[in-house]
């Protein structure tokens, strides 16, 4: 699956989470102007792990605590709407949390 062939919902979240791959994440990130580093991956993998364990796409605070990445750093990594960007690139649904 590539950016051209993958299905997303109207808001841009992956319609089918099985379509996700690291390569697709790279493409998604690039399309949002984010180039993924190790720090980005730590945040993305944490978000994916929490979603897989709890069945609920996490908000930023949970991701920040679990990945031990300060909120400020997360905003530097994903400057434009980190909660949405992380969920989209990580291939998980729109976060259900307000925090």
């Amino acid at each position: 699956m590539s950016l051209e062939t993958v299905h997303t919902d109207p808001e841009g979240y992956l319609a089918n989470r099985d379509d996700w791959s690291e390569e697709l994440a790279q493409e998604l990130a690039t399309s949002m102007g984010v180039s993924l580093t190790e720090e980005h991956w730590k945040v993305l993998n944490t978000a994916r792990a929490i979603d897989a364990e709890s069945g609920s796409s996490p908000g930023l605070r949970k991701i920040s605590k679990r990945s031990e990445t300060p909120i400020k750093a997360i905003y530097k990594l994903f400057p434009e709407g980190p909660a949405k960007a992380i969920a989209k690139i990580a291939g998980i649904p729109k976060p259900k949390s307000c925090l």
Partner: protein
Amino acid sequence: MTDSGTEKKRSLSVICSKGSFDMAYPGLILANAARMAGVDARLFFTFWGLDIVNEKKIDHLHLNLVGNPSAPLPAMIAGLPGVEALATAQMRKEMERLEIPPIREFIEMLDDAGADMYGCQMALDMFKLTKDDLVPQVKDVLTAMDFMDMSEGAQIIFI
């Protein structure tokens, strides 16, 4: 499938005018949600809302039970000494369980998230306070007109 980036950037202005524990959170939560979604956010603390960022009061905000029709107990009991403090402690505990941060931490989080916070000049004068009485995350003290100018094109929420 991604944001085109051509439309005008959304921005949110929140005016916090109430200083009770329960009325402090809505504005903070909305501003935080805006930042998480990539929307610019600024908050203006005025009148009792200043308590939310007052260094001496920030950790001691109280629930308002008397005159609150949603209060879970009769007004006569709610008005007894210590009852509001007790109810506030209960609510704090419940919020902790839900991992909702205390006000001070929330203000720090908003600052880290890039939300701008301002105190109202007139309210500070009225309460005989200065910027030094406010938490350091408050960027500046403004008049209502300054805040209006800053909010051009923004969506404004008054709480």
